[in-house]
């Protein structure tokens, strides 16, 4: 193939040396066929006006790119409508700093490790939140939410992960955990910023109908120590480690880490029982 290619190339170069113009040169209007014009010029222009190979390649490539872009945009936008908000109707209780959601009779237990500043966790909640809520409502699963704080230094000042983790634990006693948890991820502050202030966390709780002394619980950091202890436990647990160490989100079913890039992970976990 290389030999033939080189042969073509040589012929092409020879042809170009003879031809008065290259293929891509634009046609000059009014010239072809005019008096005193070299007749081959007109024929060159005629070829140019028609579909040259190069032009076909460009149009085909542009068309292919456009198809790729349009198809992916349509697929994404149509997929986006699916996670319709499901109202939570499941019970929630505390086990240390771990939030245990769902009916105690559920056959399947799912452990979810999340940092409230972790963008991948926000994505996980966006993709799976509605389905998890539905399964919790239906009594199919129990979810143990471990709000760990591994990104403490990713906010400026550091510590948003702990403050958000503490507030989420406070939201259990305030009877608003499902919606508070969802909103912390849906309105997640960006890394490198200050995160939500205590005032903002309290205001969010109030907006969602927090009961009891939610404000004092948030401002005093009542559960911060428990959150830190839970983080240490999670980081020290070899079973939770991936190739790059412990990261969030980590999901465990029946003692085994689950591949959450498989979009059927929850359905399969429920079927296995």
């Amino acid at each position, binding site marked *: 193939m290389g030999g033939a290619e*080189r042969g073509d*190339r*040589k012929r092409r*170069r020879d042809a170009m040396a003879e*031809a008065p113009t290259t293929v891509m040169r634009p046609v000059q209007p009014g010239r072809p066929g005019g008096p005193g014009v070299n007749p081959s010029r007109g024929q060159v222009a005629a*070829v140019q006006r028609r579909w040259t190979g190069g032009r076909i390649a460009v149009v085909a*490539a542009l068309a292919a790119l456009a198809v790729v872009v349009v198809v*992916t945009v349509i697929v994404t936008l149509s997929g986006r409508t699916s996670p319709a908000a499901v109202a939570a109707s499941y019970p929630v209780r505390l086990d240390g700093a771990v939030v245990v959601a769902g009916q105690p009779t559920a056959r399947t237990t799912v452990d979810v490790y999340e940092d409230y500043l*972790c963008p991948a966790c926000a994505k996980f909640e966006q993709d799976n939140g509605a389905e998890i809520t539905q399964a919790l409502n239906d009594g199919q699963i129990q979810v143990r939410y471990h709000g760990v704080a591994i990104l403490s230094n*990713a906010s400026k000042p550091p510590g948003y992960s702990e403050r958000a983790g503490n507030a989420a634990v406070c939201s259990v006693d305030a009877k608003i955990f499902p919606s508070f948890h969802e909103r912390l991820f849906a309105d997640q502050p960006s890394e490198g910023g200050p995160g939500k202030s205590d005032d903002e966390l309290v205001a969010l709780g109030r907006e969602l109908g927090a009961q009891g002394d939610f404000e004092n619980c948030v401002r005093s950091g009542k559960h911060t120590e428990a959150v830190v202890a839970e983080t240490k436990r999670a980081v020290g647990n070899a079973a939770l480690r991936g190739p790059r160490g412990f990261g969030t989100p980590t999901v465990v079913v029946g003692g085994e880490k689950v591949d959450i890039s498989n979009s059927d992970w929850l359905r399969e976990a429920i079927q296995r029982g």
Partner: protein
Amino acid sequence: MTARSAAALDVVGTVARLGLAAVWLVSGGLKAADPTQTYVAVRAYDVLPIAAVDVVAAVLPWFELALGVSLLLGVATRLMAVLSIGLLLLFIAGVAQAWVRGLSIDCGCFGGGGQVAPGATSYGLEIARDVGFLAFAVWLAVRPRSYLAIDGLLASWDNARLAKEGS
């Protein structure tokens, strides 16, 4: 220009084309294989509104793969080179603004014990790498000719037709 030096330039063009194709195929392949990581990476640059992050993160891998395939085959090489320049400049701008603003573009979801892996050192490296790729793309935009390219076959086809009609 002698035939020999033209051939040498064609060899450079071939290396640039296949190199750039490999860059896009690998980069697009990795992104397509791990959509969550891609979403997180796009989001970490903190340039786009959240609603647009989804779409960009979904389109980007396939766009890169399309560029890679087209360059690999040598179809519309100059156009692909120009698009590559545009995309690489966007990447460089994205990294540079994240650097200036002190954002952690390493996503930072792998910390292990409250420590975020220091991502600061990788900004410069990332930009240097993109500038290297940019050199390939600029070469091809200026001189898209190379061996083993469909463009070359099409051009010789055109020239053969031209020569036939001219005679």
